[in-house]
């Protein structure tokens, strides 16, 4: 970043900024040079920030009315729905907000996969993002337990039992997680405590994620290094701010559709039955955003190996910057990768569908093939593509394809030279 020295105009501003340079930070964020070719897939960062704040604000309010106790939790949620002023609205926004949050994060992640945003020099941004994603899943899982319905209880039982697969200490770890010999009141109260804590950890990580982003600056659809600031960039405010706000508006239409027209469509009817430790619902499934991993877990016939496969599916994403060896970032210039990218998208969608279906017969077979392909993509296809793929010619600058010739002759060519172009 080329941060020129910022000096506040007013005397008071200067006095304050000399002591706490928060105005310098605000100025940096306002003028932050952004590639001018960012498309709407780049607006999900802003949308995700909105989602996180919405969840924190609605969650804070729900915690004022919710009672974290096995005997009272279920009733207190109904109390919120029926008695608390606008309680129904706040709870539906919070519950559907979790799904919207995951919808946005999946688009955000797949945008990064398509345009190679995880590659050097942005590996740390990617890893921070993956930690945020894992924390989001933990937070969502614990939040889903709080209403203490049947799905809450049995979801908690199944997921915490994953840890019992660990040899020797597994059972002790599960007992420790539960605070008893089954999921019960001690489990509920600790989940509530952690469900309250984790969003703030996520918030802290989001700050680091953005900080790490502001060091190299945004990637862009053609995936080349951009000189900043230059003809290839625009300032964050007002250009990107307005674009992000417009995208947010569209996103809110989808959000509002769920909240007002089908607030329970993403949930399960069984969760309106109070938790009963004696009866497992006939068909338990996690929330939609966890289904691909659930399908991987179930497609392995061995308990320990199934759990390992599920966690490996996540971990493999963390090390992705070193699995994809291609120096070209954007799929636009990688004709083969582009096809495999869409195979992966289809594969994950298939896994998600299989995760919702019973684990038997043809469903199980398809889930197994899809699981194998998932690992094949990251462990075999990506490293081979990096070495073998014949990539297309990358433009010298964002302006070049339009104006012909690089707008900024001082463009760094070394990134391109590396790629045998």
């Amino acid at each position, binding site marked *: 970043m080329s941060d020129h020295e910022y000096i506040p105009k007013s005397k008071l501003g200067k006095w304050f900024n000399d002591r706490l340079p928060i105005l310098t930070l605000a100025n940096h964020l306002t003028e932050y040079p952004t590639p001018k070719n960012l498309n709407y897939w780049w607006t999900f960062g802003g949308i995700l920030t909105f989602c996180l704040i919405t969840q924190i604000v609605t969650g804070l309010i729900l915690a004022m009315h919710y009672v974290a106790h096995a005997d009272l939790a279920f009733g207190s949620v109904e109390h919120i729905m029926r008695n608390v002023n606008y309680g129904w609205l706040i709870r539906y926004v919070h519950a559907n907000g979790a799904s919207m949050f995951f919808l946005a994060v999946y688009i955000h992640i797949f945008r990064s996969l398509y345009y190679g945003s995880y590659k050097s020099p942005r590996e740390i941004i990617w890893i921070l993002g993956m930690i945020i994603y894992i924390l989001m899943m933990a937070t969502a899982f614990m939040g889903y337990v709080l209403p203490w319905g049947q799905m809450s209880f*049995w979801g908690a039982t*199944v997921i*915490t039992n994953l840890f019992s697969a660990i040899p020797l200490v597994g059972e002790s770890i599960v*007992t420790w*997680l539960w605070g008893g*010999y089954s999921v019960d009141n001690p489990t509920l109260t600790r989940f509530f405590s952690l469900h309250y804590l984790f969003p703030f950890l996520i918030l802290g990580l989001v700050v680091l994620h953005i900080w790490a982003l502001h060091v190299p600056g945004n990637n862009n659809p053609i995936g080349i290094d951009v000189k900043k600031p230059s003809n290839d960039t625009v300032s964050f405010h007002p250009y990107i701010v307005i674009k992000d706000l417009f995208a947010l508006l569209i996103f809110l239409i989808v959000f509002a559709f769920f909240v007002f027209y089908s607030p329970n469509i993403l949930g399960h009817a069984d969760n309106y039955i109070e938790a009963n430790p*004696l009866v497992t619902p006939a068909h338990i499934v996690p929330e939609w955003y966890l289904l691909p991993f659930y399908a991987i877990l179930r497609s392995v016939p*061995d308990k*320990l190996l199934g759990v390992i496969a599920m966690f490996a599916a996540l971990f493999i994403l963390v090390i992705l910057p070193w699995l994809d060896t291609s120096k070209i970032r954007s799929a636009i210039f990688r004709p083969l990768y582009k096809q495999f990218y869409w195979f992966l998208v289809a594969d994950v969608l298939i896994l998600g569908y299989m995760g919702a279906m019973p684990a038997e017969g043809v469903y199980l077979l398809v889930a197994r093939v899809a699981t194998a392909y998932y690992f094949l993509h990251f462990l075999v296809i990506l490293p081979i593509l990096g070495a073998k793929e014949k990539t297309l010619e990358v433009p010298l600058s964002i302006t070049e394809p339009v104006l012909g010739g690089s707008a900024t002759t001082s463009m760094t060519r070394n990134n391109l030279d590396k790629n045998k172009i």
Partner: protein
Amino acid sequence: MSDKKVKRRDFIFTTSYALGAVGVGAAVWPLIDQMNPDASVKALASTEVDVSSVEPGQSITVLWRGKPVFIKRRTQEEIDKARAVDIKNLKHPEKDEDRAKNPEWLVMLGVCTHLGCVPLGDKGEYGGWFCPCHGSHYDTSGRIRKGPAPTNMEIPKYEFVNTDIIKIG
């Protein structure tokens, strides 16, 4: 650094780090152990159940330590089926004689050893239990026969107080 001799000061550093680590560990342990089962949870250790009204072929489910316990009064046919199995072919080899001391009564934790769901009775390919969550099949002795569960359903500690009362725990 390598050619430096070990000095008295190095010894002091090492011992103070070691002592510091022990101190931090001791301070952190209560913060971790508080999550283990508390005294009130441990106090609910045993349950007595009256089984006098259970007919052959019937099964009742009682709650013990927050977990369901199946008490099944097996029919002669079910007992024969369980005892006829060659245990060498089992994933978790256990004799039915060891699982049900009194062959008529099978008392076991109704918790699937895969991920903790409650299996459904009189279902599955072996006429015992079937777990709806991930498709584990158990036989009439509660032994795992097919599916992802690694072990047989657990037999808790129990005893017949008299012919009608079973004490679990």
